[in-house]
């Protein structure tokens, strides 16, 4: 028997709500690299430390954009912060998001201070802008640098729980809805934290290779190896959690288990079982295992790492799709499914999604024109003949 409630013919949360947790997740690369480098002293991650922060800031800036496009009354968006209703998980978004955005901005400010000081000493509008950004304090003494470094360390430390809160919150948004058995699991917010870390590290590796290739730089072998190992470790945890969730649903055989198994069989076989698990999880898992456990020559190692990173970006996107859309395909009658195919040109369609997803990369490119994102490599390249 197939039956859906009559108000369920249309899916309420579209591809925009798939994109929102996806872009938010990409921010996590900064959180993990910044924590490992600044707080836990993993020096090998130094080449990507600054870039990870800046890219996270840019992704953060664009994370609420899909939400804004989705809202029926976007002009009232700030009411979430002005007149919040605290029993709602969603009302925490504004505060958590703003707190993390300010923290990353402050961290970037302290990390980039030395660069701004160099530029502020010149003449012209850029120098003036840099002086204003520095609040007209051009102190560049070793003592000041040390103090700045200390502040960055403290900020990165505060960032660890705050980032967990941000990424966990997104999972909690879904996990706290008892009406939907596909979402309603306590594992959801942990899964979101780990999948965010996976996508964040993956996008960082992706960027590092693409930029290095475009500018004919030599990538830092130790850095890539370290990133690959962390990615491998975090993806094992993320995928294990995702599989545990399904396993517990099937094994417990609750009232909802039957319909969820049918959901996977009938609606999510391709996107969930075949693509998310068999192709985009297993292959990167094997590739990263090879990279992490065997001593490969640099070229094949880089190729495998980059391929795994790109595939994991796909895996997390598929995971977001299967959670957000998959959960809505299931009728609350538990006896039927609706369907959803995003339109191409509609307001919340694929073209809008593609534009929103491309914007952070464009802004990052502009940012790179203003401040060098890979200072070590650039200094090395400019000094070599």
């Amino acid at each position, binding site marked *: 028997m197939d039956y859906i409630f009559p108000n369920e013919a249309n899916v309420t949360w579209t591809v925009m709500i798939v994109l929102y947790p996806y872009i938010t997740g990409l921010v996590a690369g900064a959180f993990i690299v910044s924590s490992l480098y600044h707080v836990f002293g993993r020096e090998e991650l130094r080449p990507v430390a600054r870039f990870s922060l800046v890219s996270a800031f840019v992704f953060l800036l664009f994370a609420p954009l899909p939400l804004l496009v989705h809202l*029926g009354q976007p002009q009232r968006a700030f009411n*979430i912060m002005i007149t919040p*209703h605290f029993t709602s998980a969603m*009302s925490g978004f504004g505060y958590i998001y703003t707190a993390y955005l300010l923290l990353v901005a402050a961290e970037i400010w302290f990390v980039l201070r030395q660069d701004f000081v160099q530029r502020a000493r010149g003449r012209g509008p850029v120098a003036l802008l840099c002086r204003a950004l520095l609040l007209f304090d051009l102190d560049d003494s070793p003592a000041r640098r040390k103090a700045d470094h200390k502040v960055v360390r403290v900020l990165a430390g505060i960032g660890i729980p705050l980032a967990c809160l941000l990424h966990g919150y997104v999972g909690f948004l879904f996990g706290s809805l008892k009406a*939907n058995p596909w979402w309603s699991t306590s594992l959801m917010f942990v899964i979101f934290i780990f999948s965010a870390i996976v996508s964040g590290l993956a996008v960082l590796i992706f960027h590092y290779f693409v930029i290095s290739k475009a500018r004919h730089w030599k990538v830092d072998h130790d850095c890539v190896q370290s990133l690959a190992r962390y990615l491998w470790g975090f993806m094992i945890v993320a995928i294990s959690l995702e599989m545990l969730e399904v396993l517990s649903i099937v094994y417990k055989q609750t009232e909802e288990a039957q319909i969820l198994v049918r959901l996977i069989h009938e609606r999510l076989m391709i996107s969930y079982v075949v693509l998310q698990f068999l192709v985009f999880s297993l292959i990167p898992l094997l590739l990263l295992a090879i990279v992490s456990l065997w001593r490969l020559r640099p070229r094949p190692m880089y190729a495998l790492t980059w391929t795994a990173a790109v595939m994991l970006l796909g895996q997390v996107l598929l995971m977001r799709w299967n959670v957000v859309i998959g959960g809505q395909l299931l009728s*609350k*009658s538990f006896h039927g499914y609706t369907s959803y195919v995003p339109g191409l040109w509609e307001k919340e369609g694929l073209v809008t999604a593609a534009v929103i997803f491309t914007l952070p990369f464009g802004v990052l490119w502009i940012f790179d024109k203003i401040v060098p994102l890979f200072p070590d490599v650039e200094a090395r390249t400019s000094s070599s003949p």
Partner: protein
Amino acid sequence: MPRQKNRAAATHGSEAPPAAKSPSATPELTRREALGALAGTSGLLLLACGGRPPERGPVDGYDWNGHRWGYAIDVDKCIGCGSCQRACRSENNVPDGYHRTWVERYRVTLKGDLHVDVATGSDHVFATVEGEVSRAFFVPKMCNHCSGSVCTKVCPVGASFHTRDGVVLVDHDHCIGCGYCVQACPYGCRYIDPRIHMADKCTWCYHRITRPRADGTRQDPACVECCPVKARIFGDLKDPKSRLSLLLKRRTYRVLRPALGTEPNCYYHGLKREVL
């Protein structure tokens, strides 16, 4: 010592305003006095700007503290005529393709298979179906106006709210159209109205129940008013003599999906185990 200096500076700072005008004529303010004056002024300012106005009900002449509305449905009486759906649609201007109330038709075949459908056409008349059945019945559905409603809980701006008289409403002056309440409702009763891009649902015809007729009698929701077999009963749970209160005492009623803990205020008599 430095701390004492700072304290002195802070005290001096608070003395500045009166000293500016006439230092000799005006006695100097102590810090205690300055803070007291500041607190007093802030209090007055708060009273002037942020004081809560005396609470009034949503409708003039209607005391929303005097009622707690409830709803009962007698499944055995419903004949699936669709009058309630038609009345609701015309009373509340419900958009096409969405429903504030609907009637589900359950058919259990001789083999024991279950078939459920709704009459979703513009006339809300069920399509004729072939085949023998062992049992068939109709179940009207609508917003349950739950006391422990999830939809009001998840609304990020409090636009979905409980009235004092037990009705769950959506404030269209504040709804941001995020759709979180639509996801949260386990009964599928909410939708985003495509014309206004905000959440909407059954209001138990709040505009009717809060305004008496010319003769002083209470108006029922449109669906109750037009039900030809009185399968839908609306009443005041605060009034022990209301028909609804008496019925709930005398007969056995169940609510939909009680395990979810939403505490619905829509009670069903004769609810079969097959009902979703």
